[in-house]
């Protein structure tokens, strides 16, 4: 049994004639997509692209605007609040990508096993994903209640671990990690579903062959399952990275960026600059930088993660 790198030499040209015949018959004409593209262009592309102009103005959201060149971007470089928000965003993103996907993978391996309640468990683990992030944040405010008898602190007290009680959302040193915990709790089930789709696509005979070759459970996972989960990992890492970099709802609903500035993310800063301070020009500049940053990170991730994907 061998696992080869994807698109081995010759594969791409092996069946061109058959593929072309099939393509001609099965591929719908391009204009089928035209109505959807038009709607997408009208409500997504046009507003987004036309909005870029505002990044080079001092527009306050009302009244006239005047162009101020690169002033907004210069301000962004010297803005302490934006810099600390960037740091929090990166911390949150790295934590969420690692922990959410780690937990999601463990859950997927667990519910992929032949256990009786696996369907129920899949639903239970996925359930938080379908709830609005704002609702989740409000619920977790109760879970993170600093009262010694409430939420996590209450459970810690019952377990005799009173010393570990915390002011989860009120302690500036802890708040970012508390938010990361909330996000992981909500979206680990989402990662699980994607890994599960990957796991179910791995032919059983490969594991059987490895077992016959004498591979133990860990070796089967390490040398068969893990390489073949690469496409799922690519999707999961990319989605969780994008989600982490643009994290807003949970932060805004749980802490509003506080206490102080200790849980501000780039998205909460750009929201406040626009809708609280009335600095739409500067806010658009932050949004533009954030969009370019997300695109760059995603492209780099695709490049590296696709490189490790394998075919069977």
């Amino acid at each position, binding site marked *: 049994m061998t696992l080869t790198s994807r698109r081995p030499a010759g594969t791409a040209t092996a069946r061109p004639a058959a593929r072309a015949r099939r393509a001609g018959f099965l591929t719908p004409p391009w204009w089928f997509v035209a109505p959807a593209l038009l709607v997408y262009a009208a409500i997504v592309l046009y507003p987004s692209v036309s909005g870029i102009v505002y990044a080079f103005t001092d527009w306050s959201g009302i009244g006239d605007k005047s162009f101020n060149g690169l002033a907004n971007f210069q301000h962004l470089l010297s803005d302490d609040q934006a810099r600390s928000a960037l740091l929090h965003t990166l911390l949150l993103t790295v934590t969420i990508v690692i922990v959410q996907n780690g937990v999601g993978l463990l859950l997927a391996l667990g519910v992929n096993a032949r256990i009786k309640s696996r369907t129920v468990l899949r639903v239970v683990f996925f359930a938080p994903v379908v709830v609005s992030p704002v609702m989740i944040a409000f619920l977790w405010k109760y879970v993170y209640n600093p009262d010694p008898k409430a939420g996590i602190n209450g459970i810690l007290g019952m377990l005799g671990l009173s010393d570990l009680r915390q002011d989860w959302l*009120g302690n500036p040193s802890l708040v970012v990690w508390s938010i990361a915990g909330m996000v992981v709790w909500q979206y680990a089930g989402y990662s699980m579903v994607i890994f599960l789709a990957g796991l179910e696509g791995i032919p059983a005979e490969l594991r059987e062959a490895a077992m016959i070759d004498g591979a133990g459970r860990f070796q089967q996972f390490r040398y068969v399952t893990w390489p073949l989960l690469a496409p799922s990992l690519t999707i999961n890492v990319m989605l969780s990275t994008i989600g982490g970099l643009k994290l807003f709802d949970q932060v805004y609903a749980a802490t509003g960026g506080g206490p102080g500035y200790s849980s501000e993310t780039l998205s909460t800063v750009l929201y406040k600059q626009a*809708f609280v301070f009335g600095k739409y020009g500067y806010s658009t500049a932050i949004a533009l930088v954030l969009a370019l940053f997300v695109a760059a990170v995603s492209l780099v991730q695709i490049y590296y993660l696709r490189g490790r994907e394998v075919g069977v």
Partner: protein
Amino acid sequence: MTLRFERNRREFLRAAGGLAAVAALPVSLAACGGSSGGGGGKTLRLVGVADQQKALDELTKLYTQAKFSTSYAPTDQVQTSLRTQLGAGNAPDVHVVYPGNGSAMSMAQIAQAGLLADLSGQSWTQSIPANFKSAFQLQGKTFIYSAGSSVIGAIYNKKVFADAKVEPPKTWSELLQVCDKLKKAGKIPIALGAQTPWVTQLISYALVPSTVYAKNPQFDSQMQAGSTSFAQSGWRDAFNMYLQLQQRGFFNDNPNGTTYEQQTSMVATGKAAMAVQVSAVLPDFRKAATNADDLAMFPFPGADTAANVWIPAGVVVGLGVSARSRNADAAKAFIEFLGRPENINRWAEAVACVPLKRDANSKIDPVLNPFLPFIDDNKAVPFMDQAWPNAEVQPTHFAVVQELLGGKTTVDKALAKMDETYRKKS
């Protein structure tokens, strides 16, 4: 077989990613509203904040010269959606406006952009008290209607005070003694829900009239002229007093992790003795209490001599007429109707505030009686943010107070940050 299988799986994964992106689109705003008004005439589009709904429901029904299409939403949603409408040139005929300056939807910010109609000719504007004119007027013209003022003070649980055998204090040192006694009686003296940003400002606002304005009534104009600063003023004393309350253990544990709702519940249920709050939230406290009559208010003393205690009394959120409204005349006529003394009284009663001008028919919530002598003696100053030049100072104040409570900054740095933000161009 395997190659085709892998392709299908990848396509599924891509589709799943696409679906996730669609599902991640922002949720829509929630608001409530309707149509009202029994009369004929034009239909006026009115957008207000939730706090105004009770008053406007009553008054739009009484007004017979127009029909209304109304919509109400919480403050942050209104700030977002209404400002967008103002920017797009399709603002409602009558809409919420915040008094003075200092927020994105404040009278000064919107009037400067030429988006508010001048209400100066209306007769009710003659009853605006001199010390509140800056909240209503820009360059001598009136751009906002408001029915009166609400005060900031201590909402306290009378039963808890009686059990601890203490009376509402008249001076700062008396306040410290009362808090000591309440603490010894096993009660939290002051509930503080500083996780809710706007709650953080209230203790500063309660103290600053005594520590700043009682000594220097010209403080706002000096700040505007750049001849003084937060750091050089009684704001320093106010922050130190705020921290003194924390250092003496007079607040609940973890105020930065405690919300406004938890603060309300603590006082209403008698777990805490008092909370420094704005009178407009009295209905929330009363709803949470087993017996609404257990709750009362007293001016929070920020000076060691009773005669030097001043209070904050801010003009309540009001209404303006869009300068670009096609129905501007009809909208102004409605504002003129709201300005009649009987309607000012109706509005003031609905939102539990002190009416712009008191008369025999004014029904003022009895718990506000201890504040009236301060208003009559000109010892009341508008909420501080109403005189701040840009919308960033107030959120900065929220943030530095949270940092002070969390031990993440010092009074010097907090004041320097506020000064730096104050000097920014609006």
